[in-house]
């Protein structure tokens, strides 16, 4: 994503993917009873990822459309449109949880903070089944993703079909994030922090960066989850609380320390 928008701060949270998925999942939780009456054929557990994917795609699409054509997307326009779509999603979610009965409201809140408590083997296989082809696809395109570093026009000059690549990667990413968010909720900052750290460690080459970010992200999440489960045992802390609490300051620290690397867009003379 960061390569696609040529911008080191892009993550699914900013692009509205997470918020959209969260809204979709909240709707399912809030209206689960009436949904299963309307469509009794489909088990409720299927709704969450499907609805989350639809809402996530919609929100991502909206954010990108609002921030202008991709060739001109600036950090500011992306942040602004992302913020407004996120705000809308959050307010609708608030509305739903306000009007739902207590167990559902609580599960929406809990779920917005992100938690592994609801995850079982079934969800795990589902995520694997969708995640592996998506990551594999991105990995195959790593050279083309690399060329985007040069800018859209020069990526085109070096033989990358930029538009096609952008749509495909966006699609793969939205599906992946939406399904994941549909199961475990919003886990903030992972999508921004992990690629950042890995970029500093292994460089910007996507053939190394993609697997490094995927693996280290998984490892970091497992560790955080372990912490979340044990710190106030026998209760369990939502994992999103920890990732935000640690992730945000860490992000600011890293950015300040390495900001010369990201420059202001010009060449140091």
């Amino acid at each position, binding site marked *: 994503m*960061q*390569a696609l928008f*040529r*911008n*080191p701060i892009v993550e699914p949270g900013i692009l509205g993917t997470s918020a959209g998925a969260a809204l979709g999942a909240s709707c399912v939780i809030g209206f689960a009873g009436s949904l299963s009456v309307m469509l009794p054929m489909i088990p409720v557990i299927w709704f969450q990822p499907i609805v989350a994917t639809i809402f996530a795609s919609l929100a991502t699409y909206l954010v990108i459309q609002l921030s202008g054509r991709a060739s001109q997307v600036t950090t500011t326009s992306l942040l602004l449109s992302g913020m407004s779509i996120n705000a809308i999603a959050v307010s609708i979610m608030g509305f739903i949880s306000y009007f739902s009965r207590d167990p559902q409201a609580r599960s929406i809140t809990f779920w917005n903070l992100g938690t592994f408590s609801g995850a079982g083997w079934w969800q795990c296989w589902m995520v694997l089944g969708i995640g592996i082809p998506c990551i594999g696809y991105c990995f*195959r395109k790593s*050279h*083309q993703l*690399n*060329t985007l*570093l*040069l*800018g859209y*026009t*020069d990526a*085109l*000059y*070096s*033989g*990358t*079909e930029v538009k096609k690549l952008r749509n495909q990667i966006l699609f793969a990413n939205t599906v992946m994030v939406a399904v994941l968010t549909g199961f475990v909720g919003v886990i903030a900052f992972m999508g921004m922090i992990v690629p950042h750290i890995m*970029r*500093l460690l292994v*460089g*910007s*080459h996507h*053939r*190394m960066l993609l697997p490094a970010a995927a693996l280290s992200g998984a490892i970091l999440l497992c560790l955080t989850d372990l912490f979340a489960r044990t710190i106030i045992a026998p209760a369990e802390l939502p994992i999103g609380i920890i990732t935000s609490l640690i992730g945000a300051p860490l992000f600011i620290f890293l950015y300040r320390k*390495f900001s*010369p*690397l*990201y*420059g202001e*867009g*010009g*060449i*140091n*003379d």
Partner: protein
Amino acid sequence: MIKVENVSFSQKGKYLLSDINFQISSGKFHAIIGPNGAGKSTLIKLLAGSLHPTEGKIWMNGRELSTYSISALAGMRAVLSQYYPILMPIKTEELILLGKSDRFEALNSKYDRIKMLGLLEEMKITHLYNRYYHSLSGGEAQLVQLCRVLLQLEREDISANNKFLFLDEPVSHLDIQYQHAVLAVATSLVSKGITVVSVLHDINLALDYASNIHMMKMGKLIRSTSEEQPLIPEDIRQVYGLDASLVDTGRAHQYMIRIHPPLK
């Protein structure tokens, strides 16, 4: 060879280029000069295929430009722009390897690496190879970008005569020694048979390096010089509205343009 036939380009109802006709002969160094807003960069973008003419046709190697696929075009022509802001940390080596052809292969394919090292050696910038791109000076960065672009032109299944290097103001912001370093590399390509087309601001650099100078003004091609019909002071008056004279430098075939400042 490139043939430009009655090409016009308009954006939002405004004509940036109108009715351009000319040919770019193979294996020569072509310069495009003219005042700001003359349409030089637009013309380069049309020739490189990132913009498409709104009227007229461009033929490259006997086929219409728009019928080539993006990846086929990437093997035939490479483009170096004025400068590249890069927002992510990247090693010089990785940046140059972005110019290799798009294949799914090992991280550092030996073939591309050997070619890259050869090019670095040729350009005398082997010492930059392990640096971070953002730590380079403007001139060093431009040489590294040139190296990437040359790697893109290394494909062996296309003959040198059918390959083009487009330079869009490649040296405008560089120190003199780097200006000549970049243009000397471009000249060495010409001796291999590759065609170079460059937008230049400095008329004297164009005189030094180019065999054909194409002069533009307000979206029109005013005149193309050749070895038989070289640049004359009258051209400068017509294109820039400035008084000028040709000065003999004392060396064989080396003339320079001296602009006479308007008198107060």
